[in-house]
């Protein structure tokens, strides 16, 4: 992994000063914080410091990362207690004194050091019914959609699957309801499908029964940590909750159903 060399490449002079990083090291059996000191310069992000530590003093320090530009969502961690992407957390955004703590996402089982087992998210996604488009609008097999009609879905599709929203969600983090609740990321995914102008599938029963949408009590922690600034709660979860309520709890709808056989 060569990211550490970026931090030493030329490009202008910059002041460098030592800084201590308190990094959690361990695995499923347990672990503890270790202190590492490395030089920090202008513009550096936390991921740069982790890479420097790997190259200088801990070559076996495990950390997941790819793009280093906030696009792939691999380097999620908890920095000074807040879920963030390490590649997008600049050192000058953190308090200037004291050690910087870096620990793995706590809502997922630890694998090693900063790497966690995020397989829950992949399993949960598979349980959501896939995109099923209506018949094409034009004879050449294409569809027509107005930009205004896709803006809403495009917001959800910005998601980089960093799973920070899952990490901060108390239903998963504190109550460990992974088997009953898919979590905010997958609710955003479901919303992107449900609100897709071409989609014809109905996922409301699943959202209510299998995916546990009722567990969310709208504390909006997920929205706060989203690095893509997706308004997870207001724009995706609440509208989905409203649809579920309309479908299953609305007394008028219930009444209509009695008289309307079929659906």
């Amino acid at each position: 992994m060569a990211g550490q060399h970026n931090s030493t490449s030329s490009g202008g002079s910059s002041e460098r000063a030592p800084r201590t990083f308190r990094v959690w090291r361990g695995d499923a059996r347990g672990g503890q914080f270790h202190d590492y000191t490395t030089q920090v310069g202008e513009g550096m992000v936390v991921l740069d410091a982790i890479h420097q530590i790997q190259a200088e003093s801990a070559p076996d320090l495990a950390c997941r990362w790819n793009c280093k530009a906030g696009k792939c969502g691999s380097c999620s961690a908890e920095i000074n207690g807040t879920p963030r992407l390490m590649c997008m957390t600049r050192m000058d955004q953190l308090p200037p004194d004291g050690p910087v703590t870096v620990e793995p996402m706590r809502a997922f089982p630890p694998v090693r050091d900063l790497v966690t087992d995020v397989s829950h998210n992949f399993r949960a996604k598979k349980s959501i019914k896939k995109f099923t488009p209506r018949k094409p609008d034009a004879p050449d097999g294409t569809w027509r959609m107005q930009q205004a009609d896709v803006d809403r879905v495009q917001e959800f599709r910005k998601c980089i699957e960093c799973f920070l929203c899952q990490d901060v969600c108390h239903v998963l983090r504190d109550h460990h309801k992974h088997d009953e609740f898919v979590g905010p990321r997958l609710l955003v995914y479901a919303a992107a499908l449900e609100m897709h102008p071409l989609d014809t599938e109905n996922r409301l029963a699943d959202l209510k029964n299998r995916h546990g949408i009722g567990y969310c009590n709208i504390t909006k922690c997920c929205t706060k940590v989203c690095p893509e600034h997706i308004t997870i709660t207001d724009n995706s979860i609440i509208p989905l909750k409203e649809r579920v309520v309309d479908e299953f709890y609305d007394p008028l709808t219930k009444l209509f159903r009695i008289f309307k056989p079929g659906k």
Partner: protein
Amino acid sequence: MEHYQTLEHDVVVIGAGGAGLRAAIEASAMGCSVALVCKSLLGKAHTVMAEGGMAAAMANVDDRDSWKVHFADTMRGGQYLNNWRMAQLHAQEAPARVRELEAWGAVFDRTRDGRILQRNFGGHRYPRLAHVGDRTGLEMIRTLQDHGIHQGIDVFMEMTVVSLLKDGDRVVGALGYDRERGRFRVWKAKAVVLATGGVGKAFRITSNSWEYTGDGHALAYEAGADLLDMEFVQFHPTGMVWPPSVRGILVTEGVRGEGGVLRNKDGRRFMFDDIPDNYRNQTAKDEEEGWRYVCGDKNANRPPELLTRDHVARCINREVKAGRGSPHGGVFLDIAWIKEKIPNSEEHIRKKLPSMYHQFITLANIDITKVPMEVGPTTHYIMGGVRVDGDTQMSTVPGLFAAGEVAAGLHGANRLGGNSLSDLVVFGKRAGEHAAKFAKEHGAGAVNPAQVEDAIRRALAPFDRGDAGENAFAVQSDLQGTMQDLVGIVRTENEMLRALEEIGRLKARAAKVGVSGHREYNPGWHTSIDLHNLLTVSEAITRAAIERKESRGAQFREDYPDKSAECAKFNLVLRKGADGRMQVVREPVRPLPAELQQIIEENK
């Protein structure tokens, strides 16, 4: 001996970016059992970083566009060293692949009449890139991923392949390890598709992630396959240059497509000063015409900022070397200036280039809606790769296929922006289809345990040397410095000969790399394995670049600054000789059929 698990599939796909996912989907749809092996988590591959768009002549924005114009543009961009069959198939099939993504749930930006919007890009005659803001790659990989997970494909995440397994001439599987535990595994298969991407980590300044270590190139080479066109490495003209830790991160060509201009420290739009003859007829005469083009005026020619990437990168390099650069060794890329032209420009920029806005404000404290960016060239893409058949994507080794960046041919000497995303799906589909056919027509071969054990022994050797061995990170860093400084954007014979010597020394050091600790998620160990691949591709790039004594496309030779008619007649093939040494062989360029030649003439 080390224990390993053996799994059997009809087709194994190595790599899960756009090409690998598309290949896996196709092979699976044809009834094959498919294993998809990815170095990272599913959905994190390099495709996710592609920004600008996906080139396809759908003619939604300009009805003069057609596959023929796209074909001619691609050949012109590649300086006619392209595999013309691939350029033809790519141009013909890309529109269907875009529409297919829409049918699988992709949500592209729209035209006023509700169709898929297309934007301008360098070297493309008409607005041709289907896009989603500046995150088109994310849209593509997520669409393929979300479609693929319902296709019954067995996905193996965070597993790295270290060797291909052969039965006689034929490839019959792959050996790899999982990062989580460091355990080995054999995927036995009737056909193998390489979709491993590129080699950017051979250079110091690159837009590529740690994964891009030339794995597929080296796996194919070691398995006896031909590599082609390895001298052609694309330096993207616009990477970030400041602060140091983000140097090399990509700034999409879409910025220029939306009207961004390049200026030197004196404020001069230097791109107007050097327009190649073969593009003169298609380039704006002045700034006013360039802006009209950006606004969609069909009678205007494109601004010189949208010339091909090789040319723009060299012009930037020249400005910097002449002392006319920006404070941190780049030039200025200005999109904020469009406020002179349109109302609500700040909102417009944030809407069209949201990731760029986000990237600069977060990492560099720069608001691109208000001030110019500083940019400079960054290693971005390799046109060269595994030599494949244009129709089937099969390499010169039976049962081994390649698609996407790891394959060579489509782009010739220089790739046009936007032709990569379409490459992934056009040839990913073809590779998957023909790998499935091959699997059905050929039974399973036999895996030789001695090959497996030998490869495992080599992979684990660094642990035997422990801390006493060389540091893998240090060797990798020295290789990156060598390639950056001696085989970079401007090349000379003397420097490249020095690079070859240095690569020889680095190989000796790499053979002595030691790793301490455990096998679980140990980046030092992983780097020691990747290092072998990086050294192989670095040698291939350097040997080919020495052999091509001319400047063409992405290859610029200071000692041979012009194109040579002689060199236009061959591609360079690299293969492992019987003595184990790398051979460079001239392969005559296949002549174009008359009808394709005519298309090129008509579009000159």
